[in-house]
């Protein structure tokens, strides 16, 4: 079943944002994509704080999270998401350039659903994004309260 929630893309690199959006479009994924450029903004959006005061807690269908972000980095965002009862079960996919063992280990320790390395080659990257989108939005069953 297709999920309706938006895709939350947390990425500070504008090039990567453009390329990701393009890939998603090419994969015919129609969900809205909400882009946050840093960790703090992402958390504000998720918990309805700061600039998003009053809009309530967001329920994206999947969060595509980079690790290297300004202000608050991806792993910290992941930790906060997992700590809060309201957002604990949201699917989080870390999409990062890093293949450092520490990042990988830490991410799974914090309870990430999936860890994907961003390939340098665009075709590979595009394929990866497509697969991610199709899997998480079509194939994967969302947690109950997210629908």
């Amino acid at each position, binding site marked *: 079943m297709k999920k309706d929630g938006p895709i939350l893309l947390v990425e500070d690199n504008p090039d990567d944002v453009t390329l990701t959006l393009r890939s998603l479009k090419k994969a015919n994924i129609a969900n809205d994509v909400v882009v946050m450029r840093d960790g703090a903004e992402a958390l504000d959006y998720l918990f309805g704080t700061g600039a998003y005061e009053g809009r309530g807690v967001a329920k994206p269908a999947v969060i595509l999270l980079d690790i290297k972000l300004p202000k608050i980095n991806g792993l910290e965002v992941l930790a906060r998401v997992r700590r809060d009862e309201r957002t604990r079960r949201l699917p989080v996919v870390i999409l990062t*350039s890093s293949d450092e063992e520490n990042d990988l280990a830490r991410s799974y320790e914090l309870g990430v659903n999936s860890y994907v390395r961003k390939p340098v080659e665009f075709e590979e990257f595009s394929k990866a994004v497509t697969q991610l989108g199709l899997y998480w939005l079509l194939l994967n069953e969302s947690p109950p309260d997210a629908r």
Partner: protein
Amino acid sequence: MRIRTLITVGTVIWVAFGTAVGGSLYITFRDVDEALRKNEVARDIAQGVFELTVLTGDYLLYYEERAQTQWKRKHESLGRLLAEPGFRGVEEEPLITVLRAHHVEIGRIFGEVVANRQTVQAQEGPTDFLLELQQRLMAQLLIKSQTMETGAIGLGSKSIAEVRDAERQAGWLVIVLGASVVIVMAGTWIVVATRVVRPIGKLQRGIQILGGGDLDYRIGPLGKDEIGEVARSFDEMAEQLSTTTVSRNELAKEVTERERAEEALRGANAELEAFSYSVSHDLRAPLRAMDGFSQVLLEDYADNLDAEGRDHLGRVRGASQHMAQLIEDLLELSRVTRAELRHGKSNLSELAQAISAEFRKAEPDRQVTFDIAPGVIAEGDERLLRIVLENLLGNAWKFTSKHPQGKIEFGATTHDGKPAYYVRDDGAGFDMAYADKLFKPFQRLHKTGEFPGTGIGLATAARIIQRHGGRIWAESAVEQGTTVYFSLGTKLVTKGEAV
């Protein structure tokens, strides 16, 4: 003179001295003893003479038989006393001789008195003549007794005088000997003080100074005797200590320097880790943009681009992909240098099989036979050894790609008596003239157009082999294949130098 000799001489001197002292004391007191004994005899003689005189009076009183017997007995014992040898002194001998003569004489007179008495008693006629004789004899007897008494007294005082002399002599001897003992003792003490106590004091001071930390102090020569030898040994020991401390200080300095170097190395390694982390994230993102947007251009603006334009974009993409590969390889080289070595046994044959299977799966159309020797076991870090085989087999796979068929071998052999391993292919080979560049990073012996590559693979393999304390080398000829050999040492090199 050596101390031992001194002690021997000293002992001899003391023994001799002691013997002399003892001997003279003994002789002297024996003399005193003798004098006393003689004095006793003289007293006895005087006593005897005196008693004889009393007995003479007794007898002459009543001419009793009993008195006569007693007189005779006393005269006999006195005679025995006088016969005593030993009065040999220059002054005594004549006295004794005289006394003896008197003794004999008095005996004769007494005999005459007794005989006369008997005659008187037996005589019946006039005894005036005999009585007169008796009177004369009595007088003689009495006079003789007195003379004897005087003589005996004279002998007595002579022998007392002798005793006093002997005692005085003994006294002087004791004083002299006492003084000599004091002198000899003082002499001994002086010798001990100068030859033993003072040098020992110097030794003691030397030891204290040395112990206090002044390692340059030397006692210097202290004579040719045993203590001098101790002083020499001491100086030698101080010399040794000095050199050892110097080398120990130098060693300590080296250790601190080494520690500082290690600290610096740790710092460098930490910096390198941070650097690699940065590279992971920050260098790859722009490359992705370059490749991505080139592709976007190709896709979206294909109509506006001619073949040349498309070619240019293709090159942009190629360049960024090449750079991505370089980054991968550099990161691996850096990781390989920094990694903590894990000791263990690896089955290289199994690794080679697995790797060759992966190549086959990736390019199933290629005709390549693998000849992998079974059961090749080596000691080292399994992950790193896998990387070596990946590189070597990967090269073999790559450089046989231009031939329709290829053969790749892996096995074990010996070199210089030590075990070695090899990967052989029958592919493109290289000119041995450039063999020294083979294992250096970024040095390639083929154009990128001929065979792709970054020039880091062999450098990575070489670094791993180096960390295992081994050697890697190659033999080849153009178009005749290549064999890369490597050996593994017994000692693994721990975290090594920066890349």
